[in-house]
């Protein structure tokens, strides 16, 4: 019996291949976008983890020199002979690849190389020329590959690395073993030129790039939600159309439980197939996008992410789980209704989700509840989870409210209508609304997401440009190798420039948080260009009198400091004169006057300088510095070039999100197309009377097209405020909770208009084929409506 029943149920899909296609394609698309995004994120996170553990940043304290210069190897030996258990590390770049040198004997466990492969003999590593271990994406003859090395990185013995980098006798840092012996003298007795850098919890790079990955994840979630709407629609339709089959089967004696189980199993099977296709497509999408993502992250954050995608269980397993889970949720309602259906109920398929009576009230109630929750959260949300909950409640509440609002608008239009055709048009549209509501909800979500995210991105870009102007005010930046070269350079350059602005900094703990402290020279460059979020009047004057400090937004939020509070910088108490924005920085920052900085940190000399001069003189000065003082081109950077690079990178970052934008809109358009196609058969009895009364089929077709476009326009109009609300939540709640800084929100009407146009075009294209099909309906089919021969 099972076999016969199953084949009877399956027969429905054979006769309606379009519905089957809708179901599979919708689910596959949604899963593809979700798993594609997850794949990119997983690959990036694996790279960050490998990078962090390769340098032990997250786990071990390090000893570094106070002035950022290399450390003599003899210092390492002196420390060991005094009882400090430290391990030397050297790092440099060789032909674009990051080379790290370690000592395998003294390195603490869980330190690089992560997984010294079995194929490496200690003898080969140290003695016989020195074998190098590389990440899989690095090309090097004779090197051993190990997948757990961070991307674009090679690991070698410290002696070998010193030779390759031409820095014999030098090291860059020392890793401090977690357990030290008794009787150890204090650090400043042995090596006063070093300071201890405390281990950071979590990967630094991971935090920096969090905003990027949050972006991607939000998109993935959204696409999936849209896809589930499609699936829900297709399943609901399939169930409705099989009511007759089910009735017959039950009358023939098939138990209800068997039917429900079989239909559920059939759906799960389809979900698995669609999920698998989706995961495969996701892999392809990620593979195409990942090199761009990797290049962006490298340029923007200095993060090395591999450009090749690996099949990691985390994303394809969650992709399949999410496809199956989503289908299960989407089909629950339909299965439940099926099990409650009386045996002899009518076999005629009804239009989907009739919006009257209890069903409508329930939906309206849910919508009000969710929007209420969203309202409460908007005021009280302080964490990332609360922020996302707010987003979810807002989007779903609005989506549920959409059909009700549209119905109200259409009813209003109908009452105001003059003329029969117009009145019929509005009434028929309203009657068709339930069938299209899911597709329109999908369109609403896609459009508002586009509005919201593009507002956020564009606000970010605008702020970023202003921020760059503020921070990169000098025309030329130079990095010197040592104090002697710095002095020589300053002496050489001073007659030729309007101002020399040294950049000196060190990292300490301020108010319990890691903070970079900068010393600023008194110059109009800072006074004119610096933007504050909040400041006392004449803030810069107070700073240059040595009484005050400026802090960044992250420090002020993280330590709950406001303008006027006192804060201690290395034992000196200063008043906060201003708070400024510092986008993308995960740690705190403080600025004090240069003389004060030199008093508090006398060991630190500035090795980086900014010069103010006329833009047209920059090239000449750069050339002279290279020939006369022997500066390499790496050490000289002109501001116009940095800005162009930064903006270029920034734009590429958001190419990825632009691509995802297009994809989500395409998914929504697909949803509309599928809904219209599946409704076509049901439209015939509704259109036959109009045709009989004199409408030509061509005119009916055009009216169908107009109807869909108009619904899309209305949905778009409602998507705009929703999208702006979304942008506000992202900027004011989620970003602040996640990163500690807030972006101001700007509006971009032209962008919205362009988006609206695209949505309308997408809807129009989606409606074109169903309208054509309708216009070509044979007259005999229309006649049959009246003769009960259907």
């Amino acid at each position, binding site marked *: 019996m099972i076999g016969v029943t199953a084949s009877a149920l399956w027969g429905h899909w054979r006769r309606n291949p379009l519905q089957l296609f809708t179901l599979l394609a919708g689910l596959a698309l949604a899963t593809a976008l979700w798993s594609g995004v997850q794949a990119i994120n997983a690959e990036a996170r694996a790279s960050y983890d490998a990078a962090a553990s390769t340098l032990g940043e997250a786990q071990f304290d390090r000893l570094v020199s106070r002035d950022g210069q290399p450390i003599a*190897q*003899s210092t*390492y*030996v002196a420390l*060991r*002979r*005094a*009882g400090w*258990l430290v391990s030397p590390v050297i790092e440099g770049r060789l032909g674009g690849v990051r080379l790290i040198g370690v*000592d*395998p*004997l*003294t*390195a*603490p*466990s*869980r*330190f*690089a*190389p*992560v*997984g*010294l492969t*079995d194929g*490496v*003999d*200690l*003898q080969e590593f*140290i*003695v016989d020329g*020195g074998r190098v271990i590389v990440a899989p994406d690095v090309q090097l003859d004779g090197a051993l590959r190990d997948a757990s090395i961070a991307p674009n990185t090679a690991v070698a*013995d*410290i*002696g*070998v690395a*010193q030779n390759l980098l031409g820095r*014999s006798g030098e090291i860059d840092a020392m890793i401090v073993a977690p*357990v*030290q*012996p*008794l*009787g150890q003298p204090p650090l400043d007795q042995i090596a006063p030129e070093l300071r201890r850098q405390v281990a950071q919890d979590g990967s630094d790079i991971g935090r920096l790039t969090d905003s990027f990955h949050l972006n991607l994840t939000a998109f993935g979630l959204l696409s999936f939600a849209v896809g589930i709407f499609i699936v829900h629609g297709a399943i609901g339709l399939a169930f409705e159309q099989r009511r007759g089959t089910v009735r017959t089967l039950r009358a023939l004696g098939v138990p209800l439980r068997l039917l429900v189980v079989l239909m559920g199993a059939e759906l799960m099977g389809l979900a698995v197939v669609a999920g698998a296709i989706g995961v495969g497509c996701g892999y392809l999408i990620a593979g195409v996008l990942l090199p761009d993502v990797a290049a962006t992250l490298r340029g923007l954050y200095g993060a090395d992410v591999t450009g090749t995608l690996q099949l990691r269980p985390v994303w394809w397993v969650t992709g399949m789980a999410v496809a199956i889970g989503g289908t299960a949720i989407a089909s629950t309602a339909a299965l439940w209704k099926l099990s409650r259906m009386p045996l002899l109920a009518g076999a005629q398929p009804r239009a989907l989700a009739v919006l009257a009576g209890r069903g409508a009230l329930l939906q309206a109630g849910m919508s009000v509840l969710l929007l209420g929750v969203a309202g409460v959260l908007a005021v009280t949300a302080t964490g990332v989870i609360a922020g996302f909950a707010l987003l979810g409640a807002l989007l779903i509440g609005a989506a549920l409210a959409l059909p009700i609002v549209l119905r109200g608008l259409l009813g209003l239009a109908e009452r105001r209508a003059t003329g029969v055709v117009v009145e019929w048009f509005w009434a028929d549209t309203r009657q068709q609304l339930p069938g299209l509501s899911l597709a329109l909800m999908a369109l609403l979500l896609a459009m508002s997401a586009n509005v919201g995210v593009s507002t956020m991105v564009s606000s970010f870009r605008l702020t970023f440009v202003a921020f760059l102007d503020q921070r990169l005010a000098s025309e030329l930046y130079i990095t010197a190798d040592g104090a002697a070269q710095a002095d020589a350079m300053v002496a050489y350059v001073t007659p030729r420039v309007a101002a020399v602005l040294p950049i000196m900094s060190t990292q300490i703990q301020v108010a319990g948080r890691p903070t970079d402290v900068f010393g600023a020279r008194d110059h109009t460059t800072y006074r004119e260009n610096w933007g504050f979020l909040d400041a006392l009047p004449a803030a810069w004057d107070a700073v240059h009198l040595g009484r005050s400090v400026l802090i960044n937004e992250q420090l002020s939020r993280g330590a709950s400091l406001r303008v006027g509070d006192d804060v201690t910088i290395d034992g000196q108490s200063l008043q906060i004169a201003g708070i400024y924005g510092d986008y993308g920085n995960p740690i705190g920052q403080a600025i004090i006057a240069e003389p004060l900085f030199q008093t508090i940190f006398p060991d630190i000399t500035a090795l980086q300088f900014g010069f103010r001069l006329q833009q047209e003189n920059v090239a000449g000065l750069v050339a002279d510095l290279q020939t006369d003082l022997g500066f390499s081109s790496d050490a000289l950077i002109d501001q116009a070039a940095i800005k162009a690079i930064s903006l270029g990178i920034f734009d590429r970052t958001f190419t990825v999100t632009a691509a995802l934008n297009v994809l989500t809109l395409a998914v929504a358009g697909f949803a509309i197309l599928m809904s219209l196609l599946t409704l076509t058969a049901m439209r015939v009895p509704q259109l036959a009377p109009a045709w009989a009364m004199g409408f030509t089929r061509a005119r009916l077709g055009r009216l169908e097209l107009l109807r869909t476009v108009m619904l899309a326009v209305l949905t778009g109009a409602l998507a705009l405020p929703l999208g702006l609300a979304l942008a506000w939540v992202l900027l004011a709640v989620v970003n602040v909770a996640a990163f500690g800084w807030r972006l101001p929100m700007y509006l971009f009407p032209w962008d919205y208009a362009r988006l609206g146009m695209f949505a309308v075009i997408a809807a129009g294209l989606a409606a074109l084929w169903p309208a054509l099909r309708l216009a070509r309906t044979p007259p005999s089919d229309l006649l049959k409506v009246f003769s009960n021969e259907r």
Partner: protein
Amino acid sequence: MNAKLVALLIWLPLASWAQGFAGLGIAPDGFSVPAPNPTFNFPADDGAHPDYRIEWWYITAILTGDDGRDYGVQWTLFRTALAPVAGAGWSAPQLWMGHAAVTTPTEHFVTERLARGGVGQAGVVADPFQAWIDEWVFAGSDDNAVLRAAGPDFAYDLQLRATGPRVFHGDGGYSVKSAGGQASYYYSQPFYQVTGMLRLPDGDVAVTGDAWLDREWSSQPLAADQTGWDWFSLSFDDGSKLMGFVLRGADNYTQATLIQPDGSTTAFANGAFAASELVRSDVAGRAVPTTWQVTLPQAGIDVTVSALNTQSWMETSVPYWEGPVTITGSHSGRGYLEMTGYE
């Protein structure tokens, strides 16, 4: 995977696990091999011999604290070479390993250090004598040497004074280890007197007692089938001392040296010295014998040797058992016991 552990697993070439305990049984390709009838020159031979593969400076001390309790202290510096050259800088093929331990009747403290040769972090200089790894040091002359080491939970600072001459084991310092002829150069300085201070979690303890230095170097000290050894250094109350070991393999191979208070020695060849286990204890998840019956009938020695603390397990990269023992029977006294190869 623990990078350090892996690094030490390949401490000696990988094939070594099949050949004797800790790879000491692999062939000495390229390295010098001990020959019979050696001549020793001091102080030069106090230092390192880089053309031999493995070498150690091994001090064990049996001490009594001012609290009346018995203590045992170990200080060991191992040198192993990846190639038979001294080398310089990071590419020097010399690797150094230090073990330090303090044993009380109720506790056993142990710690380990590793270092590369060639950069100054560890090494041995013959004249003036200094052996060091990190801040651990054994340095000075015969009548005035210091011995210092520290771990996360213990430390010691001892002064040593030699009251007798060096003694040479086997055949004038040429000590054969198996019927196949594998051998090492082996001498000891068993006549140190010790005063000093132990720093333990419960507090500092002033200690006095005796110490014994073992010096041994070779390139293949074991045969491929020898899985480990049991080594005894016994100091009897009448002033004489006994060094004896059993190398466990297909057939056991033994050797012993009886040392008189004036420094004269009697060597005993394979078979004369015998040790049989009486009691096994559960130590670090292994069954390790901690009470032995040691006999040397030719010298009238028949004693029971039992561990001061059965849990004297050296939890180091290559683990083994080492701790002080008490002696009863035909002679009484105290000593040290080392047992390797119990898995």
